[in-house]
Structures are given as structure tokens and as C-alpha cells.
């Protein structure tokens, strides 16, 4: 423990790092947050950031356009490595999305007040990550215009999807997840849209927010039903978020490929998803609070708590790695034992060691109070974890597929320019959407901040 650090989780720490800065009223939180959208001039930095991100989105569009013309041959995939970047990136993006639902649903049910100022943009992040994720399996089908085959519809051919296949479970899990996340986010937004409608000065702005707010007027009867619906959605989203990455892990674990066919996959995938998701929330929160002066709302307490969640889930992931390793050796199955050797000594071993470095070793620094409270270090660490989680999916997909049962079926995989262009392009699309979101919608829930003001003022009295 470093010197001068107050005892762990003492009232002293709570006073030093509150969830809301002192001296705020209903009007001040409303003014501050709605001003970002309504009155603050758009900064030059916003335009520059948006232009870069939008340029990368353009790169993605070109990459996908070229893919549609030439087919999946422009990628590095081959037989036996049919999955490659598309599935690695799909799992990575879906994983990132998980923190949003976790923050908004599970922390809501656990009555964690600190979720209030981060839940809105974490939910937005979930939606945008799911949108990026959804692109990959779609374009990976090779003929995306036939993607509707995956949905059950009465076709003239009289055929139906195979409901015993994890790939169909995936379709249902991801589309349900996208739909429920969207509704959860929108329901949370309704009171804030009403605030923006009432505060908008220009007529068109008023009309647009007014239509979106659907005539919300904050009546007590409405609030009562609203709160029921919100609580129920939180209760429904909680098992949903756990199920989504479990179903995605089934894509792997239901098959018999060495390194995939293991029962530890669902919990270890879910923990990894939350891990990468919290890393992404930190990656977004730190520049956001800085750029818009939101240090009173996204306080050090939030960053500290998120870092702790990251540390805890990182340890679960480490446990998963260990048991994956142990079970392979303990099983005595020679294919599984061989796969472990390939991870440690095979052609992709550097990826495996980088993964251990990024995901297990580096995050141990988060045990230190000083590291958790150093914004720059925390930001870098969140990016390291994001890279680590991407490497994890790469290791899982590529090493197993290049080294399965028969040496004659072994292969090698290396991504092409178009693989990278698509991947980096989706990051551009994600950042573009985040930029648009902070510009046109309140990045922090205003209604919930007012509730927080009411609660903190009650305590003082």
C-alpha cells in the first residue's frame, strides 16, 4: 500500500471521491448536461475527431464494397481457417457491448448509485458495438443478400432453419440483445428527450426532440409505470447479457475442435466480455469527461470502481486461461495436449504470450490505488486490455483451426489489407457513432442525475 492512502472503502474515501461533485442542484445538472447538446458551440476538436473517424468509416465502406464485388477471397481466410478476422472481430465487438448492459441492468438491480452518470453512454456504446459486431457474420456469409435465410420465414422452398445449430442460436441471441439494448436505452432517454424539447430554442430542434419524447410530461402515473417497466427491463437484460456471450461461446464449444470443446467456455467468455466492455467504457469515459468538463459527474470514484471491476473480471479471465490449460493437460487427450503445446511453442506463440501480458500481467497494476487514480495510466491500460481481448479471440480462432486433428489438414493464416481495412473501419464507425451521440443526445442521464441530487440533499438534512 502506498503512503498517504486512506483505508480501503472508508467514509474518508467516499468523501474524497463522491459520485457527484458538491453543490449541484436540479437546475445545475440539467443546464450543464443539456448545454452540451443544445447551446455549447461544437468545438474544432469535435470536427477533427469526427472527420478522422468518418474517414475510417469510409475505408470500411470501400472494403465491404470491394468484398461484395470480389467475394471473400480478398480476405486471408482459407481452408482450414474459414473463420479468421470476421469471427475474431465479431466476438470482440459483441464482448465490448456487454459492459453497457451490465452497468445499466445489473448495477441498477444492485442499487449501485455510481452507475448513474456512466450508464447512458455505456448503453450507447453497447448499441454501437453490437452494430459493428453484426456486420461481420453478415459479410462473412459470402452472400450477405441471402442473410434472411437465417430467419425462420415461410419460404416457397418449404425449408426452415436448423434450430439445433449454435449458429442459429447466435442469430436469435444477437438480434434479441440488439433489440432489448435499444429499447432499454430509449426508455431511459424519454425523460431526457422531454427536457431537451422544453429547453430547445430553435423550432426544428424542439420539434425533433418533441417527437422523440412522445409527449412525455413527467406525470406521477406515468413515472410509476415507467419505473416498473425500467426495473423489469433491467431484470430481463441481466440474464440476457449473461446468455448472449454464452451462446457465442457455444459457437465454439459445441464443436469438437481441440481447444474449443470445453465446458469452461460460457462463463469464461462472459467474464472476458465484461472485462473488455469495462475497458472500453474507461477508454470512452476518460476523454469524454475531459473534453466536456464532466469531472463533477464522472468522478474519480467512477473510474476507480470501473478499474476494480476490470481487475476482478480480469482475474476471472485469468482463472479461465489457467483451467483451459489445466483441463487440456489433465484430459490426457493427445489433440488437446498438442494444442496447448502449439499455443506455447507454435507459430502463433507470440500472440499467446502477448495475450497473457495484456490480459493477465498488466492489469495486476490495478491493485495499486495510485494507478487507479492516474487517469493517463488508466486510459493506456484500458487500451492494453482491449488489445489483449482481441488477441484472445485471435488465439482461440486461429490456433485451433490451424492445428486440428490431422497434420495434412494443418494450415497457416495471415490477414490481408482488406481484413485490416474492415476491422479498422468498424472502429471508425464505432467512434463516428459515439461522436454523433455525444453531440445530439445527453451523454449522461439528466433525470437520474436529478434523482441523485435529491438523494444526496436528503442525506445532508
Amino acid at each position, binding site marked *: 500500500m502506498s503512503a498517504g492512502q486512506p483505508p480501503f472503502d472508508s467514509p474518508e474515501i467516499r468523501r474524497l471521491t463522491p459520485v457527484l461533485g458538491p453543490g449541484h442542484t436540479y437546475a445545475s445538472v440539467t443546464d450543464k448536461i443539456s448545454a452540451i447538446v443544445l447551446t455549447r458551440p461544437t468545438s474544432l476538436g469535435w470536427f477533427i475527431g469526427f472527420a478522422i473517424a468518418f474517414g475510417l468509416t469510409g475505408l470500411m465502406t470501400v472494403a465491404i464494397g470491394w468484398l461484395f464485388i470480389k467475394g471473400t477471397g480478398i480476405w486471408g481466410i482459407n481452408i482450414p481457417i474459414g473463420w479468421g478476422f470476421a469471427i475474431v472481430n465479431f466476438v470482440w465487438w459483441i464482448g465490448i457491448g456487454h459492459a453497457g448492459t451490465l452497468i445499466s441492468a445489473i448495477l441498477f438491480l444492485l442499487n449501485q448509485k455510481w452507475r448513474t452518470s456512466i450508464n447512458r453512454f455505456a448503453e450507447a456504446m453497447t448499441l454501437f458495438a453490437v452494430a459493428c459486431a453484426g456486420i461481420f457474420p453478415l459479410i462473412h456469409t459470402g452472400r450477405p443478400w441471402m442473410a434472411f435465410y437465417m430467419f425462420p420465414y415461410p419460404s416457397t422452398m418449404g425449408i426452415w432453419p436448423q*434450430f439445433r445449430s449454435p449458429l442459429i442460436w447466435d442469430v436469435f441471441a444477437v438480434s434479441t440483445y440488439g433489440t432489448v439494448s435499444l429499447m432499454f436505452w430509449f426508455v431511459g432517454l424519454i425523460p431526457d428527450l422531454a427536457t431537451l424539447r422544453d429547453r430547445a430554442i430553435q423550432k426544428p430542434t424542439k420539434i425533433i426532440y418533441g417527437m422523440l419524447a412522445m409527449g412525455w410530461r413527467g406525470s406521477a402515473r406515468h413515472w410509476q409505470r415507467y419505473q*416498473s417497466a425500467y426495473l423489469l427491463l433491467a431484470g430481463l437484460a441481466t440474464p440476457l447479457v449473461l*446468455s448472449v456471450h454464452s451462446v457465442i461461446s*457455444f459457437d465454439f464449444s459445441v464443436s469438437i475442435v481441440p481447444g474449443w470443446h470445453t465446458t469452461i467456455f460460457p462463463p469464461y467468455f462472459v467474464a472476458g466480455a465484461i472485462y473488455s466492455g469495462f475497458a472500453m467504457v474507461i477508454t470512452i469515459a476518460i476523454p469524454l469527461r475531459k473534453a466536456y468538463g464532466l469531472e463533477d459527474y464522472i468522478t474519480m470514484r467512477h473510474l476507480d470502481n470501473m478499474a476494480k471491476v476490470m481487475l476482478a473480471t480480469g482475474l476471472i479471465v485469468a482463472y479461465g486461461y489457467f483451467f483451459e490449460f489445466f483441463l487440456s493437460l489433465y484430459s490426457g487427450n493427445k489433440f488437446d495436449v498438442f494444442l496447448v503445446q502449439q499455443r506455447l511453442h507454435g507459430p502463433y506463440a507470440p500472440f499467446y504470450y502477448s495475450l497473457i501480458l495484456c490480459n493477465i500481467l498488466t492489469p495486476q497494476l490495478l491493485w495499486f490505488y495510485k494507478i487507479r487514480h492516474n487517469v493517463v495510466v488508466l486510459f493506456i491500460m484500458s487500451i492494453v486490455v482491449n488489445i489483449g481481448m482481441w488477441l484472445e479471440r485471435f488465439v482461440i480462432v486461429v490456433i485451433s483451426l490451424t492445428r486440428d486433428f490431422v497434420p495434412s489438414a494443418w494450415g497457416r493464416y495471415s490477414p490481408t489489407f482488406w481484413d485490416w481495412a474492415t476491422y479498422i473501419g468498424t472502429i471508425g464507425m464505432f467512434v463516428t457513432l459515439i461522436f454523433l451521440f455525444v453531440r445530439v443526445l445527453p451523454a449522461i442521464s439528466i433525470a437520474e442525475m436529478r434523482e441523485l441530487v435529491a438523494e444526496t440533499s436528503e442525506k445532508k438534512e
Partner: protein
Amino acid sequence: MILHRSHIYGVVGEFETPEKLIHAVEKVREAGYRRFEAYSPFPVEGLSQAMGLKRNLVPLITLIGGLTGGIGGFGFQYWVAAITYPLNIGGRPFNSWPAFIPVTFELTILGASLAAVFGMLALNKLPQPHHPVFNVHRFSHASTDRFFICIESRDAKFHLAETARFLQGLEAHHVSEVSDD
């Protein structure tokens, strides 16, 4: 003085804090008013009890939605896999129910969530772009930092002047009538 004018929706009074709102709501109920509504910029704890609101129907609708999604989802998969499109793969059973659980689960959640959101909106009669209370100029503060009570003209006890005086007696600011157009 004209009583029960058709173009008067009610009388609205403004309060500064949630505590004053709850206190006023209790007084309004004690005075015998029944057709009134409170408006607040965030859900105020204890307001539903003070207004004597009953439990709402959202949970029941959500349960029905969830059951429909779950039973419908499982039934549909059974119909596809065992009746309309059976595939004999190595003699395995057509009704391989454990393999249907993930989709059944997802559809249960989907059905319940859709029911919760659309049920809530329907019961609240939203979207409803216009409402008479929006005619009150100061009502735009109801989404920022002010709390309102509107006693509606359809209440049996409603009397424009007396009700307005009554609200003023509760320390309401800016008591004004709400026109109905």
C-alpha cells in the same frame, strides 16, 4: 364567474421541492379532490403512495409477453423440427428439446421486454404529442427543477376560483388555469 367551463382543463400550481409536492398532494387528497395529477422532473419517492395510486399493470403485461414468447418460441421450434420439416440425422429424436432451449430463452426475454416497453407506453397513452398542461408557460420547468400539481376540471369538487385559492393556500407559486385547447 363561470363554473365548469368546457375550455378549462384545470388549475395548476408550482412547487419548489419534492417534499413540498408530496405535502401538497396529501393536502389535495385530504380536501377531497380525486381527479388531479402531479408532475415532476424525476420519479419522486413516496409520491405514488401520497397520491394513493394502485399497483400498475406493467408487470402482468410483461409476464404475459414473456410466456407468449417462451411457449410460442418452443412450440414453433417443435413444429419446425418435428412436424413440418423433420430431418432424420442418424436416427436422433426429432424433438431434441435441449437444443431448443437457447432460442426459447431468447424469445422469452424478447417477448417480455417488448411487452414491458410497449405495455408501459400504451398504458401511459404515449405517444401523445399534445396535452393541455403544455399550454401553461411555466410547465416547461416540469422537466428541469419544478414540481406541479394540476387539479382537473372534471373533478366533482372543482371550482375555478376556489380551487385556485386552495392551491395558493398550499404555498404553490404561479397558480394558473390550464386551457383545454
